[in-house]
Structure formats: structure tokens, C-alpha cells
């Protein structure tokens, strides 16, 4: 082992620890290693009791998100060579920790479901399968394509100061995904999603800090999605207020 690096890792084993502690591990340094490689090295070679989530190692599955020196990162995309000194690894902020770096995702999953992230057609407007797919122009695709890149890694929740203050907030990824379907020309379910999105707990809690977009590893720009949803919901609100007899869009 030539050069080494120190990783200071958050540990919490509910059956033996009354509160979380930090444990420091020394790992070999390789310029091509990402933090996840170092954490895997610890698990395989030093301490098999360390628990964390990971899967694809290539920024697609969204399961290896951790706080690295206080910043939410996909550890499969954060290189050791970009850090100096001891690297501090903690579970993503704002979620209840279950064990070591593993936290409960229940709140996020429930919020994701509440925005109905799937294509909804109005009653009776579903095409039979034989008639083929719903066609879309490249321009219609571009409208929402950026938001489809979300991998549900939850880095945006860990970065969001509003969610940290008050976890009733629907949050960046769920709103961006709701917006992804709202802007899809094949979808007709916007009214159904508005119940969650246009509520107090939805877009109106957001104060446009923008950290969600800053940490997003897929350049989804949830902050932008939320601002667009605010404009659209405001137009809805005044339409309903001024033209109560008008048909709801």
C-alpha cells in the first residue's frame, strides 16, 4: 500500500449503539477510485459490518447517495483524487437513519406516489392497443425530457433547506417528476396531480434556494421545474377566481 486515505464514516447499529458514532478507516488511494470503491474496500477487506446501499456503480441506479464532507453526492461519481485529508461520509441528511449509512426512504416513496408519476389518460380517451402508440414530435419530447433523467437518488432532498426544516414539503424530485408528466403531450392527468403539487405542502413551500439543482447529478433542475409549476398554478388560480364558470383546464 503506497499512498492511503482516511475515511471517517458515520456508524449506527441500533442493537448496540445508543447514539451514532464515527469510525475512521484507512484505505489505499488509487487515482481512478471513487468513494464508493473505497467504501466497498472497507466492506470487503476491513469491516464487513458496515451497511450502505449501492448497486450499479455508474450513476444510473441512484442508490449510493451519501453526504461527503457535508455535501450530498453520488459516491460512485465522486473521485478520491478530488479530496484531500480525511473524508467524512454520512447518510443523506434529512432522513431517519436505520443503520450506518442506510436511511428510511418511506417518506420519499409516499411523496413520489402522491404526484402520480405515470401517464394518465382521461376516462374514455384511452386508445385501444391495436391503434398503436401515442405519437409525439421531437419538440414535444424536448418539453419534458430533461425531467425524465431523474434517478430518485434523493440528493436534492438532502440539499434542500426547506425539507430539512419541515419534512411535510413535497420536495424537489417529486415535484419535478410530477411536472415531467404534466408537460408530456400524451398525458391528461395534470388536474389529479395538482392536488398534491399546488397545495401548501407542495410548490408553495419552496423558497427557490436552488440547492436541489446544484447537487443534481443528472442536471434535472428541479428548482426550475418548481418555478414553472408555480407560474402554471398561479394562472390556474386566477382563472378559477376570475372565470369561475369557465371550464377547468
Amino acid at each position, binding site marked *: 500500500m503506497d499512498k492511503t486515505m482516511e475515511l471517517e464514516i458515520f456508524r449506527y447499529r441500533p442493537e448496540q449503539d445508543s447514539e451514532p458514532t464515527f469510525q475512521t478507516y484507512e484505505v489505499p488511494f488509487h487515482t481512478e477510485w471513487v468513494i464508493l470503491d473505497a467504501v466497498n474496500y472497507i466492506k470487503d477487506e476491513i469491516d464487513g459490518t458496515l451497511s450502505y446501499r449501492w448497486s450499479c456503480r455508474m450513476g444510473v441506479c441512484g442508490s449510493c447517495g451519501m453526504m461527503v464532507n457535508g455535501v450530498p453526492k453520488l459516491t460512485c461519481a465522486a473521485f478520491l483524487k478530488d479530496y484531500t485529508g480525511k473524508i467524512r461520509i454520512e447518510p443523506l441528511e434529512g432522513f431517519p437513519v436505520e443503520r450506518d449509512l442506510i436511511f428510511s426512504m418511506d417518506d420519499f416513496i409516499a411523496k413520489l406516489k402522491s404526484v402520480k408519476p405515470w401517464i394518465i389518460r382521461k376516462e374514455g380517451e384511452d386508445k385501444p392497443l391495436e391503434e398503436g402508440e401515442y405519437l409525439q414530435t421531437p419538440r414535444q419530447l424536448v418539453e419534458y425530457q430533461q425531467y425524465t433523467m431523474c434517478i430518485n437518488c434523493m440528493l436534492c432532498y438532502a440539499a434542500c433547506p426547506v425539507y430539512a426544516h*419541515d419534512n411535510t414539503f413535497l420536495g424537489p424530485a417529486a415535484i419535478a417528476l410530477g411536472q415531467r408528466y404534466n408537460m408530456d403531450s400524451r398525458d391528461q392527468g395534470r388536474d389529479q396531480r395538482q392536488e398534491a403539487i399546488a397545495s401548501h405542502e407542495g410548490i408553495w413551500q419552496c423558497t427557490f434556494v436552488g440547492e436541489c439543482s446544484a447537487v443534481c447529478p443528472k442536471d434535472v433542475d428541479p428548482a426550475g421545474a418548481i418555478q414553472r409549476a408555480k407560474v402554471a398554478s398561479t394562472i390556474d388560480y386566477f382563472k378559477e377566481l376570475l372565470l369561475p364558470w369557465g371550464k377547468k383546464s
Partner: protein
Amino acid sequence: MAKSNEPIPWSLFSAGGMLSAILLPILIVITGILVPFGFAPLESLGFDRVHAAVSGNLLVKLILFGFIFLSFFHWAHRFRFALVDMGLRKIKGLIGFACYGSALAGTVITAALLWRI
């Protein structure tokens, strides 16, 4: 989840923010650079000239009123959320009342002053 009335303060906030972002730099250039450094004559901002431009000119009054009152609401909304985010979550009702109340008071005073010019 309850439907929110937030579009009302938010639309005033965003309109105020947009106007301030567009007009404030122009005001800064005129009042902070052009006139003080002598690029424009001092009299261009003289009381008589400015007063004559506003007095009896309903369109100018309306534009000034819109700009000033929207700026007040822009401040109110931002200040409300800044205080709440700094941890005063428990009294957010009171904060909202104080912020929008101040903006409303400022709006009434602005209207009264403009009316009298």
C-alpha cells in the same frame, strides 16, 4: 391536502421582483452615476422638473404606484420566508400578517401621497 391561496402573494412577489430587477439598475445608473458624476445636468433631477413630471399626470402616477406597491409586496414575501427559514416557524402566521400588513400600509400611503402631488 388543502388548496393554497399562495398564488396571490406569490404573483405580487414575482411581479415586484421582475419590475425591480428591470428598473432598479436604471435608477441606480441615473441617480447614482450619471447625475452625481456630471454625465447628465444636475437640473434633470431638480425638484421642479420631477414634480412637474408627476403632478397632474395620471399615467406617470399609475406607473409609479405599480412599481412602488409591487416592490413593497416583493419585500414582504421575501422577508416573510427569510424569517420563517431562519427558524421562526412557530409564529409564521404573525410574520405573514406583519409583512403583508406593512406592505399594504405602504401601498395605502403611496396612493395617498401620489394622489396629493
